[in-house]
């Protein structure tokens, strides 16, 4: 749905399509965007549940094709999976070429992350094999439902610019279908987080593109990230690391007033634990029971800018 000129068909009841439409509408409004992804429902009702929904899907595909989209994707729902529609066969026999089927099957196809993974792998068939790596970076699997997704993108772009590198493709966020052909031509894939490692592996096998399995997290994690990118792309990262370390020192200096504050953390997820320990240590906070109750955002803050936003929220809590 993040392919700007694509149409997504949800092969299921209108209500399932509404859930997604409503969620994406809320996010679009939060980001002051008027663009709304086109989500077409095959409108399965009790009749199709009894007699099969393949005709309804065929009709939905024809309706979608009539709009000349850059791409048509078909997602299966639990209803179409439960009634056993042969979605692949309907799409293959359709006069409309190049339909991407993502066999999500609603919850019958697994959880949320499984769906994201399947969609990314399904869309990767659109990438071209005919280009040499061009030194650019491709971001893989940005969390499109994440409120801070674009803020993370800006931070990634800033960090990579310290190395003289640019992001060429966001796979898949706010991108036209034709641009997906560039998927194989980046020199490095940066995966949003380790849960999508299989996608990184798949791209590696398909295009030979190396990958880093996560956006940077934490002070030292951000510096390590710069070194890692430099190593993979054969770029000297020492100046970039020095610049970013100075940036981080300035940031820590800005929050010196928090030094010595007794703090505690509630409900820390395992990945958040090392980050909390690092920030406590770098800012000179005192962990202890009865201290100011702080939280680590989930997903974890990205890069130095993410830490900065988290620390502003912590200071607000400490002052309250």
């Amino acid at each position: 749905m993040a392919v700007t000129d694509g149409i997504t068909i949800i092969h299921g009841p209108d209500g399932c399509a509404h859930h997604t439409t409503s969620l994406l509408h809320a996010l679009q409004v939060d980001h002051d965007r008027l663009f709304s992804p086109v989500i077409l429902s095959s409108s399965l009702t009790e009749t199709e549940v009894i007699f099969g929904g393949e005709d309804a899907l065929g009709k939905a595909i024809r309706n979608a094709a009539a709009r000349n989209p850059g791409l048509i994707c078909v997602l299966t729902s639990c209803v179409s999976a439960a009634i056993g529609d042969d979605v692949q066969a309907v799409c293959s026999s359709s006069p409309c070429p190049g339909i991407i089927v993502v066999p999500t099957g609603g919850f019958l196809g697994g959880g949320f992350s499984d769906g994201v993974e399947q969609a990314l792998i399904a869309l990767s068939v659109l990438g071209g094999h005919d280009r040499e790596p061009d030194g650019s970076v491709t971001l893989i699997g940005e969390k499109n439902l994440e409120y801070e997704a674009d803020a993370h993108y800006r931070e990634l772009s800033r960090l990579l610019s310290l190395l003289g590198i640019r992001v060429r493709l966001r796979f898949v966020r706010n991108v036209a279908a034709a641009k997906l052909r560039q998927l194989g031509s980046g020199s490095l894939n940066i995966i949003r987080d380790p849960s999508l490692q299989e996608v990184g592996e798949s791209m590696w096998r398909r295009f030979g593109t190396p990958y880093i399995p996560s956006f940077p997290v934490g002070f030292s994690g951000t510096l390590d990230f710069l070194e890692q990118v430099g190593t993979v792309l054969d770029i000297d990262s020492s100046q970039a690391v020095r610049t970013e370390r100075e940036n981080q020192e300035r940031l820590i200096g800005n929050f010196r007033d928090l030094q010595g504050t007794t703090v505690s953390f509630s409900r820390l997820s395992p990945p958040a634990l090392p980050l909390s320990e690092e920030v406590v240590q770098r800012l000179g906070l005192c962990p202890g029971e009865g201290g100011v109750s702080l939280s680590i955002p989930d997903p974890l803050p990205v890069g130095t800018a993410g830490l900065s936003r988290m620390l502003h929220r912590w200071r607000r809590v400490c002052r309250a």
Partner: protein
Amino acid sequence: MRECINALWPCAMTGAVSCLAGIARMGVIIHGSSGCYYYPATVLHRELHCTFLIEQDIIFGAADRLRTLIGEISDRYGSLAVVNTCTPAIIGDDITDMPGCEDVLIIDSPGFLGTYENGYRLACESLPVTVDRERKGVNLDGISLLDPFAQGNVTEAERILSLAGIPVAAVFSSCRLEDLSHAAPYTLSTNPDLSCIWGEPAGSLLGIDRTLQTISGIQEMSGGGYPEALRSEAERAKERISRSADKFLRRFDPPSAAIFGEFSYAEYACRILEQYLDATITILGSRNQPGTTHFRVAEASSLSSVRDLLSRDLPDLIIGSSFEQMICPGAAFVPFTYPLRGMVRLRDRPLIGIQGELGLMEDVLNACMDRAVRTEAYDPHAGDGSGFPG
């Protein structure tokens, strides 16, 4: 088959959950996947439970998981209701006859069964209601958690009825569980699209005129006197609206308006816009099955149909949801139906009764004036270039 691009209205399962979750001390279980749970939990803002079915449950049967959950939470509630979703309904898992769960309400309202209203009514009919013929007062129906006017409507109905000395018995669906076992013999409607089967219908509170008729009818039946305070408040309210509308019309043309929402609400808004502002109604876009009206009406339950209806005849004013606002950002906008994204709404606003009509017309006039002034300010032909209106 109609084309449905970007469906705008929730399914029957959400409607059923919305009805049941309005009853205090009733625990609501969604028998389905996390996806089916996540949406109503997000938009209804009530504690809901879910069996969180996974593929394995569909193969080996999901009833055990449901029975376990019922056992875990039954102590916390006075009663439990289970809303069935699409997949368990398709595979035919029998959850209606589970040993030890005889008191649990089972609502078979999978999403593919139809619209929000279908599910809401189905759940409402299944509530454990006993009509108490001796009970004084009236019931209210048509209250739904998805409705931005729900709490305001309850408050306004209670206020108006208290002026007439009429107590409120059960509220479908926003009351205590115990109120259901002593429902009154008569029921007043706040939203005819969500009317229930409990109690004899005794009129609607949608609009000042209908409110007065309804209260008058109730008082005739019960032999009570007509509340003069209510009549004079209603007259004052209508005068105030007429004066403001008249002032608007001295300076501006009547707006052309497109109105979107559940049919009865939208039809009411069309009527009062015509009545007070001589407005032209370009379209009544109904989220559910439209009823009979003299206004031009069409079903508007997908973004493509809304876009199509709006592009045929671009209105000055849109009364609807943030979907319509997004499509026509240049039009004056009055928030009216779910969803209302991108704005902060903290107050309880009624649509029914006297305050409801005042509130809607206040919003309409302010939105129209803001837009008209904005348009005038940027109209190169409006003045002599001095920055003052011509």
